[in-house]
């Protein structure tokens, strides 16, 4: 069965700092990759997704992620964070061409100090 691991449980940084959140998955076949964000008191929202094509994916709010197939990784980045980026971030994988379930990582809580 596939699994997803996120390297950091908690990240604290100051505004304007750069953010990188690690995500690794274990599955050898076709994967679809997602980063979701959950702001305090809100529902899970999609930040970005990778299905195929350019491995560098740009999402909303200045986030991007890079799919590195050889490393089974899909790390999330943002060059300069804002206080409003305080949230929990989840990496998720959907396997196969018609996969219809997401396997989530454990989440990373990000706190951006003003």
């Amino acid at each position: 069965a596939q699994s997803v691991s996120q390297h950091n449980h908690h990240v604290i940084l100051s505004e304007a700092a750069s953010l990188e959140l690690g995500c690794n998955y274990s599955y050898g076949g076709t994967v679809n990759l997602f980063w979701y964000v959950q702001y305090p008191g809100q529902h899970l929202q999609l930040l970005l997704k990778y299905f195929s094509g350019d491995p560098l994916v740009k999402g909303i709010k200045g986030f991007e992620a890079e799919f590195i197939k050889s490393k089974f990784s899909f790390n999330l980045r943002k060059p300069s964070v804002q206080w409003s980026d305080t949230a929990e971030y989840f990496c998720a994988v959907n396997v196969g061409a018609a996969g219809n379930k997401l396997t989530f990582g454990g989440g990373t809580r990000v706190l951006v100090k003003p």
Partner: protein
Amino acid sequence: EPEVTQTPSHQVTQMGQEVILRCVPISNHLYFYWYRQILGQKVEFLVSFYNNEISEKSEIFDDQFSVERPDGSNFTLKIRSTKLEDSAMYFCASSTRPNAEAFFGQGTRLTVV
């Protein structure tokens, strides 16, 4: 913007009681899901539903669980006889097709006492 809505937002129930969690998926979506997150643990897949039947379920989704689409808009999760370990946040989600972006509701926090 269309959204997935879940009711209630909080539910407290006694062990052994039946609960029904309700969801209204986005209207043109055809695939429906339930996930749960026990406090401090990962978000876990429970079940996916398409064309009025379960398309996939996890080992968590045992005989105590059932799902139903009783009408054209609602999608429900029933837990027949709740256990303490069923306490969790339950998320409903929907999508237009498999492996497309899933849109999530805000969740129902279920507490079994």
